[in-house]
């Protein structure tokens, strides 16, 4: 098979398009590059969905943690403690076991006037179940980052908003929220990288790879197991991950510049990238 044919056969293998059987022997470099790259689709999918949804939920968690009423504050604090204080690995296992126990056929929810059936069978699949765990996890971590930023919004900004007669929602939307994001952005960039690394855990923790449709690490591990040679597939995986991380840094850098564009040049904060690894 030429390399072009390999790409046609396996380029979209991880989402079930193309050749069904994985290569069994005589792996070429092209095979490994194509399949591991195909698995990367899943990592990007997990990372993207959970970042986008987690971003909005985290704003809510940060506000709840900052609330005066203990009935709102305490649950938010507990949520953040549970998800930041325990390994993501255990969270995946726990969520999977929980989803498996749910009835297969779906749960009937009686809303009084009508009855709907909640589909539960998709929850045991990685594309939904793992995404839910990742969303909750990133919400907790990002919520803590946003909370810290919310606490350090300068008092002068709030007073200026009051002087202009801004209150409630308009004040939050136009003054507090943008400042909070600006302050939190460098830490949030790290969180995004960190979350993207965490997507590699999905298929190693309970969630099975259905019909061998796995993520990049799943295929890298497949090759390492078959060839007993870790020195080719894992560096390929590392290469892909570094590419995506560079992409994230670029994208977040553009947003960072936009958030800081009203500040004088020397006060603009440059992004300092110090990714952590494990959660």
């Amino acid at each position, binding site marked *: 098979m030429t390399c072009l044919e390999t790409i046609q056969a396996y380029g979209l293998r991880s989402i079930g398009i193309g050749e069904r059987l994985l290569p069994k022997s005589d792996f070429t470099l092209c095979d490994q590059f194509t399949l591991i790259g195909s698995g990367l689709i899943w990592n990007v999918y997990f990372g993207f969905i959970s970042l986008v949804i987690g971003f909005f939920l985290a704003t809510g968690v940060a506000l709840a943690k900052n609330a005066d009423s203990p009935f709102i504050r305490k649950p938010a604090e507990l949520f953040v403690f549970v998800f930041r204080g325990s390994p993501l690995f255990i969270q995946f296992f726990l969520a999977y076991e929980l989803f498996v126990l749910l009835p297969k056929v779906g749960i009937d929810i009686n809303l009084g006037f009508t009855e709907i059936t909640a589909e539960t069978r998709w929850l045991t699949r990685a594309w939904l179940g793992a995404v839910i765990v990742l969303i909750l996890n990133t919400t907790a971590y990002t919520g803590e980052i946003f909370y810290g930023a919310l606490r350090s919004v300068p008092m002068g900004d709030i007073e200026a908003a009051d002087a202009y007669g801004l209150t409630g929602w308009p004040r939050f939307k136009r003054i507090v929220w943008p400042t909070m994001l600006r302050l939190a952005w460098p830490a949030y960039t790290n969180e995004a990288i960190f979350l993207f690394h965490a997507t590699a855990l999905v298929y190693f923790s309970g969630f099975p790879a259905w019909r061998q449709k796995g993520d990049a690490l799943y295929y890298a591990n497949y090759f390492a197991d078959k060839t007993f040679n870790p020195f080719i597939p894992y560096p390929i995986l*590392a290469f892909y991950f570094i590419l995506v991380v560079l992409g994230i840094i670029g994208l977040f850098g553009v947003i960072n510049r936009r958030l800081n564009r009203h500040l004088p040049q020397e006060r603009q904060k440059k992004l300092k990238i110090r990714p952590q690894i494990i959660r």
Partner: protein
Amino acid sequence: MFSYCSDPSSLQGLSWLSCYLTTGKHMLFYGSFGTVIALLLVTAPVALLFGFGGATAARSHIVPLRWFGKGYTAIARGIPDIAFFLFFVIALDQAFEWMRHKVKCPDWEEPVRQGNDFVVCKIAKLPLSSSAQWVHEAYGFSLAVLTFSIVFGAFAAIVLYGAMQAVPRAQIETAESYGMTRRQTFWRIIVPQMWIFALPGLSNLWMILIKATPLLFLLGVEDIVYWARELGGLKTSIYSYPHPDWRLWYFLGLLVFYLGLTRVSEIILGRLTARLSRGQATIAGNNQRKAAS
């Protein structure tokens, strides 16, 4: 364990539970919590040592050594940790066997890599195929410790490098004006003072290390995750203690264990920070001084 446990099928309620929770396999499960703690206690100092070496190398004036130090800290940044764990365990294992192979069987003709197989001579195998079960387990565990130490050493190196840079310049200038050499300045001025600057980073690293311990399971060590899956799974009536799928409860137990570990660490590290801030020219140290007077 208890005398009434001899016939499990006749037991009911609490007595059944007390017998169930004290079977031999459960004892191994409880023991594996010790494995996790042991891993933490062994890895933390070793990783700190690796990190210290890495940070010192990254500051070195000798160019190859500096490159090594910089490279070591750089590898940890772009790549998911789990890929490291999967990579290092096989790579280290093969490296050790290859070295033993070179020493013990110098007249071996065939190549080590034959297609998809990694072949070394029999007496170079690690551990020897004739050795006892516990040797195999100990070897697996020490490989895991080494892997954890290498990966976390890289992060500790980043933290310690930053801490060494954070020691106030005036302190170093004073040392120079006393005529201390570079080596003396390093050991007498920088190293004793850097810890307070390193502590926030190191405590963060400790938290991350705690949360990384379930990855032991992926390295093939029989740790708490392994036992939770093993014991919690569905047990049909051919077992002495049949029960439905209880893995959810076992994992809830693990969750509580980890939350407890995190909480205790938070409290201890908070106290340690207060202790190390004493007499330091930082805001925390200044506040302590004011409170005392």
